């Protein structure tokens, strides 16, 4: 059997909870035993709009966290921003409704085998998968510091319960409406110079991921980033979500962010070539 999509299942899942958190919706699905194959960094692809919808493509959402409880069995939480028609439809679904989901998909954040100092950096609701990741890292004895940033306070996603899983949490907004004024990338340079972090895990807009990759270049700090590219299928067959990534052999390939990502080694992504086509033979 092929290794691609090897944990993926195509199911109908019931929405157990759907509540507004600032500008976002926190939606919880019952997914049963599939929680066992979900890892921080994985994403799901959801069919939107109902059977007669003119929206034919699935929408991708990062898994925020999974848990198992006696009363609900395996549950999965997503954070959705009601921006477009598809995400608005999902956010409008009430508790008890069933949704068509393919999950889990994509690569996961690599978890170190021995305790390290980890810095988790989230932009906007890109912070969603970082809270589930923080719990796993803490359980492995890692020191977990988190930086969250957004243009304004309403776009920060930082649930109360999530704060328990980190050693420290600092928030940056560009307009100063929450936390410190500035960008989430501002303090990273100093943290790297102080040698106080071993690994950066990031999720958010491409500009932020690119900026962190520049800061970690030529340092010992590993940068694992979860990328965002427009996807049509989420399972590797449409070839739309590609990014230029350098391989171990030095060759640049257009890799699919759905199956070779979303978590990628930030130092291998050719950020300056995103949206371009590499020269043949480069």
């Amino acid at each position, binding site marked *: 059997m*092929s290794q*691609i*999509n090897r944990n993926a299942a195509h199911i109908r899942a019931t929405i157990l909870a759907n509540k507004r958190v600032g500008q976002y919706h926190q939606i919880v699905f019952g997914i049963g035993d599939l929680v066992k194959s979900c890892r921080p960094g994985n994403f799901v692809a959801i069919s939107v709009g109902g059977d007669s919808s003119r*929206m*034919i493509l699935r929408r991708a959402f990062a898994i925020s966290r999974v848990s198992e409880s006696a009363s609900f069995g395996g549950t999965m939480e997503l954070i959705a921003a009601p921006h477009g028609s598809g995400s608005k439809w999902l956010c409008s679904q009430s508790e008890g409704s069933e949704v068509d989901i393919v999950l889990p998909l994509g690569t996961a954040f690599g978890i170190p085998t021995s305790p390290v100092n980890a810095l988790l950096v989230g932009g906007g609701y890109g912070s969603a998968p970082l809270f589930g990741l923080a719990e796993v890292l803490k359980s492995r004895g890692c020191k977990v510091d988190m930086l969250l940033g957004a243009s304004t306070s309403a776009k920060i996603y930082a649930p109360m319960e999530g704060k328990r899983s980190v050693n420290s949490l600092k928030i940056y907004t560009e307009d100063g409406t929450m936390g410190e004024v500035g960008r989430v990338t501002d303090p990273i340079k100093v943290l790297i110079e102080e040698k106080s972090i071993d690994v950066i895990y990031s999720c958010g807009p491409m500009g932020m991921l690119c900026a962190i990759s520049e800061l970690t270049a030529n340092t010992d700090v590993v940068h694992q980033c979860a990328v965002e590219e427009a996807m*049509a299928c989420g399972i590797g*067959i449409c070839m*739309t979500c590609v*990014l230029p990534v350098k391989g171990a052999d030095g060759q640049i390939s257009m890799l699919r962010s759905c199956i070779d990502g979303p978590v990628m080694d930030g130092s291998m992504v050719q950020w300056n070539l995103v949206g*371009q086509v590499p020269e043949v033979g480069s």
Partner: protein
Amino acid sequence: MSEFDFSTTLGNAFFNTPIFTASGCASSGKELAQFFPLKDIGAVVTKSVMNKPRYGRPTPRMAETPSGMLNSIGLQGPGIEAFLANDIPWLVEQNSRIIISIAGETIEEYATLARKVRSVAGISAIEVNISCPNVENRGLVFACDPEASRRVIDGVRKTIGGELPIIAKLSPDVTNLPEIAKGVVESGADALALINTVLGMVINLETMRPHLGGKTGGLSGPAIRPVAVRAIYQVHAALPEVPILGMGGVTSGRDALELVLAGASGVSVGTASFGNPHAVVDIQSELRDLLIAKGFSSLKSAVGYAHREANL
């Protein structure tokens, strides 16, 4: 009651069922194998492969449109050597029926590809994609030019010999599709794949420029299904003996049946797999049930049934 016969043929190639993947919508099968056994469907039509590795077009490569999508992939792929070394042996191992789709920039490249495919064991047919809209130079869309279409198929036929069936994939973006179809059949095509995507464009209202990196893209999905039905109907009327592999926006068994009634001997499922990884097998069982419910004893007896005289 006799057993329902779901099988079909394209040229001398036999398939247990008439439902295939569509080239460019199933990669080389590995991604979909998690969702159903590839041997359960009629055939896997692999993504059109070129002679050399190719990066394809820049991102953004996709825009969703009402009941459809535009894509501008630009034939990204590993090149024929790596494809034959890595992808085909795996597909053969799955006991899948395989149709290799090839695409070239020149008439010679098609012939080169045909020569490399000729010696590969386990292949049911070769699809010659002369209609990919995502090439830099629209002049290279061979299927828009009757003479160029003929010359490509002629070159492939001469290289490949008489055994492997050739399926010519044509574009609906032409004035006289039956004429182009006749030309490629005269040059040696055994079957026709109808239709490739329809050329389109989306303007991004934020940037106020074309949204796709390649500016134009191919429109697919349910939005183009009536175009496919029309194209298949026209070509089947003109060339009733030539088998057609129909495709274009098929999302359900009833959609597939429309194409069959219009004249398709087989139906490829493309964009529907993006929204539903089980689309190919779902459509296959729905079509089978529908044909039986309508009283057909075989798939073949339904092919082109929409063309019968009014009083029949």
